[in-house]
């Protein structure tokens, strides 16, 4: 009886899971002396519980700024000027600063790009990590330190009790990034924003850190947003991938689809410009590494129509005029390109 009621109340058992966080039409603009820079200009993406969303794009595509916007920490002169960020169904942009601070570090945590600069140089590891626990969970200093030591152990730091007393300058880069990861996981967050977590590290350490992140994510059932410009990293880590260009989303799909059947011309160009291990690009080789001609547009004055049109091999006249709107071309696969059938807004 009960089971039939339950299934009746849930008419679409196959429906997509409800996203943990959903960014809708997010706009973050920098108000500079020269004018308004539209760094993030109408971006949509969502992260489901337990999944990793990779956000890929080149420098200045708005990937870092949009993740800072999720914590409402965009630095001045930037301001979030539009859109909604639904976290567990509630819009973060309408929360009070106090409610927001209570979420940060507790429900949504962040891992920073540069471990050398993201730890406070004058506090010991133990002091700066346990401070967060004391603040959020009203733990005693002692309990907090015990938990910190536990987490340091978990992120692969040997002899955590000694490390607690050490200062950031006494640790190696990889070690510091492990501390950064431990800091993000202190309060068991539902969502971790990892902003290029391996960019500043040696290649050998990169692999270790990625493995650690994947392992911890599975263990704690966290959702993760992994911001990177490294296709190799997302290929390895992400369930779904969002490709950004010049403050807009080009394409979102599950990782396999992005690599096997990319639709947006920018995604295709990005993948083609990845060096392949089975190909020689040395001088005199038959094939040169393909690149995307031109430069990303100046977002102070973005081009009309599609932002990618002047570098796009498939551009037609309409691309200069019509701003494409992201649309689903298959379940879970959205593209914003009028050549792929996306609707658009005429300029």
């Amino acid at each position, binding site marked *: 009886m009960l089971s039939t009621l339950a299934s009746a109340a849930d008419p679409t058992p196959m429906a997509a899971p409800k996203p943990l966080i959903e960014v809708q039409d997010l706009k973050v603009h920098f108000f500079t002396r020269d004018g308004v820079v539209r760094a993030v200009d109408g971006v949509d993406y969502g992260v489901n519980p337990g999944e990793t969303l990779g956000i890929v794009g080149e420098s200045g595509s708005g990937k870092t700024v949009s993740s800072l916007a999720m914590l409402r*920490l965009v630095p001045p002169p930037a301001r979030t000027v539009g859109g909604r960020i639904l976290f567990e169904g509630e819009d973060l942009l309408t929360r009070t600063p106090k409610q927001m601070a209570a979420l940060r570090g507790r429900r949504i945590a962040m891992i*920073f790009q540069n471990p050398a600069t993201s730890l*406070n140089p*004058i506090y010991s590891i133990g002091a700066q990590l346990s401070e*967060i626990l004391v603040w959020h969970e009203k733990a005693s200093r002692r309990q907090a330190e015990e938990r910190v030591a536990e987490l340091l152990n978990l992120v692969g730091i040997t002899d955590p009790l000694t490390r607690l007393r050490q200062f950031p300058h006494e640790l190696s880069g990889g070690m510091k990034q492990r501390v950064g990861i431990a*800091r993000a996981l202190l309060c068991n967050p539902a969502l971790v924003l990892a902003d290029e977590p391996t960019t500043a590290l040696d290649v050998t350490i990169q692999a270790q850190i990625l493995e650690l992140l994947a392992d911890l994510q599975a263990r704690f059932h966290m959702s993760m947003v992994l911001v990177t410009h490294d296709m190799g990293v997302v290929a390895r880590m992400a369930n779904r991938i969002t490709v950004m260009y010049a403050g807009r989303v080009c394409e979102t799909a599950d990782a396999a689809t992005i690599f096997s059947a990319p639709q947006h011309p920018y995604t295709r160009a990005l993948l083609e410009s990845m060096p392949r291990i089975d190909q020689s690009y040395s001088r005199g080789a038959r094939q040169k590494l393909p690149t995307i001609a031109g430069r990303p547009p100046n977002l102070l004055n973005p081009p009309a129509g599609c932002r990618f049109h002047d570098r796009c091999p498939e551009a037609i006249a309409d691309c200069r005029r019509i701003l494409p709107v992201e649309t689903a071309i298959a379940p879970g696969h959205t593209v914003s390109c009028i050549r792929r059938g996306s609707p658009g807004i005429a300029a």
Partner: protein
Amino acid sequence: MGTARYIARRLIFSACLILGVSVILFAMINAIGNPIEILLAERPGMTDEVIESVSRYYGLDGSVTDRYFTWLWAILRFDFGTSIIYNQPVSEMLVTYGLETLKIQIPAILIALVVSVLISVMAATRQYSRLDFGVIAGAMLGHSLPGFFIGILLILVFSYWLGILPSYGAYSTRNMLMNSTLIDGLWHMVLPVGMLVFFNTATLTLLMRSSLVEVLRQDFITAARASGLPERRVVFGHALRNAFIPVLTYLGILFGVMLGTAPVTETVFTWPGLGALYIMAIQQLDYPLIMGETMIITFMLVGATLLTDIAYVAIDPRIRLA
């Protein structure tokens, strides 16, 4: 262990510095000429025996090196000889006048420190706001105006026009305010301390604000915010302590600047301190007093530098490796 060795090294370095200053000072004083000749120029017709006995009385009969070591040994026992003009032990004078100087300098630096921290935090957390620009402009102005100008302005307003604060001296000569030496002393301190606070605050604010702006841009500040720490903790706990490191360097220098400008400060307010005494000693060529003053000021400066060096270790864990 490392800290103890660091401090020991700084101490040895400080001692060498003071020794070096003593050599230079003694050489320079000698270069001015024989004080006996200057004394005799005013009293012509002295016999050789008198000259000799006067030389012996002042210890001026040996070779330069002998005299240096005699003097060095004496000052190590805090004996600076007797002032020629005042006919008092120089050491006693240095203590009396030195305390008067510190009485206005130390409160001025401490008050300026607190005030400039508060102003800098307000300005730096609102970078490029009207308040921030106002603070920068005000601090620039205060930093550029000569101290004595502010001092004279203060005297003009509070002593001359309003008539509520004394314009000179450290104590009233006749009726103490409320019949209390303490209250009367504090009452006399207001204007000179006020002038020093004004100047110090301006300089420290310029430095602290820019240092704080720099630190507030750092990743670890964003990281602290992203960890959900309240803004108060982020600014005062994480940013300010880091921003304070360059300011600390300057505090030692500032103390030196304050001692260097003490003659001006103390002349404006007729304050019975080391600065005013120094001017008189130089004008009257009071050798023991000049030498004693120079040594005590060196001592204070080296002491202040030593203190800042030690404070560094307390505030910045990275120093310990150096």
